[in-house]
């Protein structure tokens, strides 16, 4: 794309400076919302834009904002900046290089649900970003864009950062809230949903960083403008984090509905050393493997089309796997991730991820028999639908899809026993 909507810093130098951001229309949308729109009108524009959550679940953003009951106060907004899905590094670029657009989106969300306090929950590893956002927030307070009685109205708003400390599960919104309350980051049982009983049991909206960064241009330019991008059911643009076996890994902001082929070959420069592509993961480690045949490569990357491939868009973290990758090894890798990150609250996930790593370690080490592949499949199958949160369900996706679509990779491992077994 020639002009970016989210990664605008790539077109405008020094956009991370307040005066430059304001020279380019920054905080006009927030001012407009606070001084001339009703909260319900803000919510309506976001609903009409068709914006869906970019954190993974794809839930319609305006609809989410409309759920907060006006009978319980105060309301809170929490920005999910936990970004820990392997292969995801998009929120980071927004916050590092276009921080005010994200903050403005968060501020508009707060106004829309009449929250006077909003938190930004960052993964601990983004320490430098936490420091940077603290500075930017202080600048906004000094400039009168945050604080009491904004623009002469009686609306007040404060923003605070909160650092996580190394736990992928804290990206799950209810675990995030527990963590923000100073407890172990373990998911809550639902209902109640955060919109009704979230932070401190108050109505809370939780949105991903990228979702929020979309909001200022939508308020500024209108829902119809936003719908010019993307597809009918998946309007707008998306940042694809491209990693793995590509020549030019990185973030690419593209309209939803761009094909895998365009992303991987046009933007990503194709596979290194002219090797062949074997599979694609579209949602980081939490992916069903997609066999990279012609049909898959020509599939538009939007919420609906990926479901058509039996996969999902998730956070649009596209990991490219070339022909040198053995998919049993890949499943071992992702399973170790999920085992490490399982919060331990429910048995199927805690025990299941443990056993899956155990079996996969043996398979990859060449110490297993074909029956172990069936055992692995059985363990994964027993977890399905029984986990308390999506982490457990995600953990079985690469396992089951690799066995189903790349069984020969497993057979190769079990058919070549290591020396230890032979002796």
């Amino acid at each position, binding site marked *: 794309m020639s002009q970016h909507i989210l990664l605008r810093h790539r077109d405008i130098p020094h956009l991370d400076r307040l005066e430059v951001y304001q020279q380019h229309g920054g905080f006009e949308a927030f001012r407009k919302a606070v001084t001339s729109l009703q909260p319900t009108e803000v919510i309506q524009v976001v609903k009409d834009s068709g914006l869906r959550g970019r954190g993974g679940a794809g839930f319609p953003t305006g609809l989410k904002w409309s759920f907060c009951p006006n009978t319980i106060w105060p309301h809170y907004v929490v920005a999910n900046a936990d970004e820990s*899905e392997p*292969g995801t590094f998009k929120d980071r670029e927004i916050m590092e290089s276009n921080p005010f657009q994200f903050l403005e989106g968060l501020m508009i969300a707060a106004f829309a649900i009449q929250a006077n306090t909003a938190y930004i929950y960052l993964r601990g590893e983004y320490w430098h970003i936490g420091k940077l956002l603290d500075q930017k927030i202080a600048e906004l307070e000094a400039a009168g864009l945050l604080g009491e009685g904004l623009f002469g109205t009686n609306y007040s708003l404060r923003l605070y950062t909160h650092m996580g400390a190394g736990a992928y599960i804290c990206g799950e919104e209810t675990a995030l809230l527990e963590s923000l309350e100073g407890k*172990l980051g373990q998911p809550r049982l639902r209902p109640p949903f955060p919109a009704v009983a979230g932070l401190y049991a108050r109505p809370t909206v939780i949105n991903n960083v990228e979702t929020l960064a979309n909001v200022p241009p939508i308020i500024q330019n209108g829902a119809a403008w936003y719908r010019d991008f993307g597809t009918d059911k998946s309007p707008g643009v998306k940042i694809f984090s491209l990693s793995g076996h590509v020549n030019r*890994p990185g973030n690419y902001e593209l309209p939803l509905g761009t094909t895998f082929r365009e992303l991987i070959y046009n933007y990503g420069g194709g596979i290194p050393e002219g090797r062949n592509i074997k599979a694609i993961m579209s949602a980081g480690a939490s992916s069903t493997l997609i066999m990279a045949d012609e049909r898959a490569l020509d599939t538009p990357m939007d919420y609906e089309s990926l479901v058509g491939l039996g996969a999902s868009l998730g956070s649009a973290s596209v990991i490219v796997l070339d022909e040198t990758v053995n998919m049993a090894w890949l499943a071992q890798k992702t399973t170790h991730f999920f085992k490490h990150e399982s919060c331990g609250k429910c048995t199927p996930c805690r025990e299941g991820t443990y056993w899956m790593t155990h079996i996969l370690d043996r398979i990859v080490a060449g110490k297993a028999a074909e029956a172990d592949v069936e055992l692995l499949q059985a363990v994964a199958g027993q977890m399905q639908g029984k986990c308390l949160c999506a982490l457990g369900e995600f953990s079985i996706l690469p396992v089951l899809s690799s066995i189903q679509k790349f069984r020969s990779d497993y057979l190769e491992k079990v058919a070549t026993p290591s020396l230890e077994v032979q002796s």
Partner: protein
Amino acid sequence: MNALRAQYPEEVERILAKYPAERKRSAVMPLLYLAQRAEGYIRAQDLRDIAEICEISITDVASIVGFYTLYYDQPLGRYHIQVCTDLPCALRGAEDFLRQLSEKLGIGVGETTPDGLFHLEEVKCIGACHRAPVFQVQGDGEIVFHENQTVETALAVIEALREQARAAKGEQA
């Protein structure tokens, strides 16, 4: 007397001001980072101080330390060298990078250099997959990313930290 509060009076107040007065428990994570800043790990005394400030039990604070990977309950080394070998990085040579770095440093993963300065760790994705090999250095109350690394550049980073520690020690003496 609360030693943490005495040592960092302004920081403690700034942290508490972020959360509603009746929700002091929310301050536990930032207070743990604060307590860890000086020594690189959380001491029994810190647990007591934080429990007192947050008005929760010492066991509650200890369980938080145990749950999150960036808090330590023992001194493992002043700088934690955390190399990512998660899937996207592994596809771009991170496992080899870690192996070579480990050899050059003369310590295995999970071990500390004899001078007590560096603890080598293997970590999950840190959000820098497009710039593999990558590692972060946790220490002195900071976490710093080092991206697009080679074994040579990594060793240079480590040497610079060693120099920095030596200089700081000289100042103290």
